[in-house]
């Protein structure tokens, strides 16, 4: 299975505790499994903050290797880039936010049909409508 991030990226991510194994890989994978069942049964979404769980770099890579790479790979540009990747397990997404210097500031696993951050936000849609109206008015004059 392909890696979702390079070793360099993994090294940048600041949750490492040396190379000491924390044995948190399986618990996280089980949490994801339960979350997928909840999504199917109750449409309940789950977000796991990878920064809040101690993981050695190799353990994070192991989790991502096991989940694999899916069909969607999106990149946002909002206060710096963000990367939204659907893993090989449909419904399991890896969301990584970077700052404007391209350093990782947060990383989440989201179990959902589509991460909210990908959707157009209502307020932005409203602003877009206003901008379009203004441009049409300008064209008309």
């Amino acid at each position, binding site marked *: 299975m392909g890696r979702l991030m390079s070793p360099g990226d993994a090294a*940048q991510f*600041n*949750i*490492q*505790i*040396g*190379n*000491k194994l924390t044995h948190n890989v399986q618990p996280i994978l089980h949490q994801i499994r339960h979350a997928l069942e909840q999504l199917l049964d109750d449409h309940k979404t789950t*977000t*796991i*903050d990878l*920064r*809040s769980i101690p993981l050695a770099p190799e353990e994070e890579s192991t989790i991502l290797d096991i989940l694999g790479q899916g069909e969607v790979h999106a990149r*946002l540009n*909002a*206060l*710096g880039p*963000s990367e939204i990747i659907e893993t090989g397990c449909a419904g399991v997404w890896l*969301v990584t*936010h970077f*700052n*404007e*210097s391209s*350093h*990782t*500031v*947060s990383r*989440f696993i989201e179990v959902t049909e589509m991460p*909210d*951050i990908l959707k*157009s*936000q*209502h*307020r*932005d849609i409203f*602003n877009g409508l206003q901008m379009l109206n203004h441009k049409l008015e300008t064209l008309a004059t």
Partner: protein
Amino acid sequence: MKDSSQKETGCKGNAPRGETLGDALRRQGVSRRSFMKYCATAVSMMALPPSMIPLVAEALEKARRPSVIWLSFQECTGCVESLTRAHTGTIESLIFDAVSLDYQHTLQAAAGHQAEAAREAAMEENYGNYLLVVDGSIPLGNPGYSTIAGISNLDMLNDVAKGAAAIIAVGTCSTYGGIPHAKPNPTGAVSVNDIITDKPIVNVPGCPPIPVVITGVLTHFLTFGVLPELDHLGRPVAFYGQSIHDRCYRRPFYDKGLFAESFDDEGAKKGWCLFKLGCKGPTTYNACATTKWNDGTSFPIEAGHPCIGCSEPDFWDGGGFYRALSMPTENIAKTAVYTAAGAAAAGVAMGALNRAKKKAVSKAHIKITIDDLET
């Protein structure tokens, strides 16, 4: 609402008074999606569960831009440098840009009486609601040691603290007295905590503190209207809850007893533990090992230098930056013996350290070295 002449005296005077944080961000062209990204990062930064992201977003959206008065006393301006230079234009600076910084005599354009007028106006308009940020220690020896516009630091602190909703002491000088407090403490320097006892105070120590910790505390206050959970030294647990040692990537070498003995030996080249070179990581609580410095590039231990323990009280009088903790140095050694015993017991939480225990250990001071632990 300030008039135009007043607007030019404050640091952020061009922002409308009373606007919400959401209004301020929109005025700066920050999209809702960017705001949601900020909220997700803020929740992670504050060690809150991700389910809080929508609630944090809602609270931040409606939060009124707080007036912030920043007083600098006996300090080197390193704390301000840390905050303003580290993350220019990045996601971490978003919240700091969105507060109304009404007085900071290094950053504001106004000087002298004009600057003091801006401070007094901000105090009057926001009495009981503004945030007071303090960097630098306060000299009690002689009021003339440090004054601003002819006002002693002590008088200014007492005056401004009266109307503050909360106080954030930034940097080791304002939290514990810092370097001015180091022996023989010629100015009689003390911390904010030593003077103000009737206001909520959060300590953000470090020489300087990590910028994201400062913005994290501001974010927490904006979101929940209260200060974050604090440890026994008044520090936010989310950032100071674990020792440098516990999160250090060199920790496995410590556990295996592999130490650099000098700065140019094989151990140093191989990146072994710097404990014997004086690293204060085991007794220092801060987020350097995880948050890191210079846009997340590295932290002192990663650059090959031992932690000097700058976020702990009296770090300057600890007996030497390059003396190992197990050696009988002054204050630090008292901590070290306890810490070493804790490490030997494998799993004993270092968070159990507190001042009372340090004193007890000090009385029964028994020198324990790394060699003792390895045998």
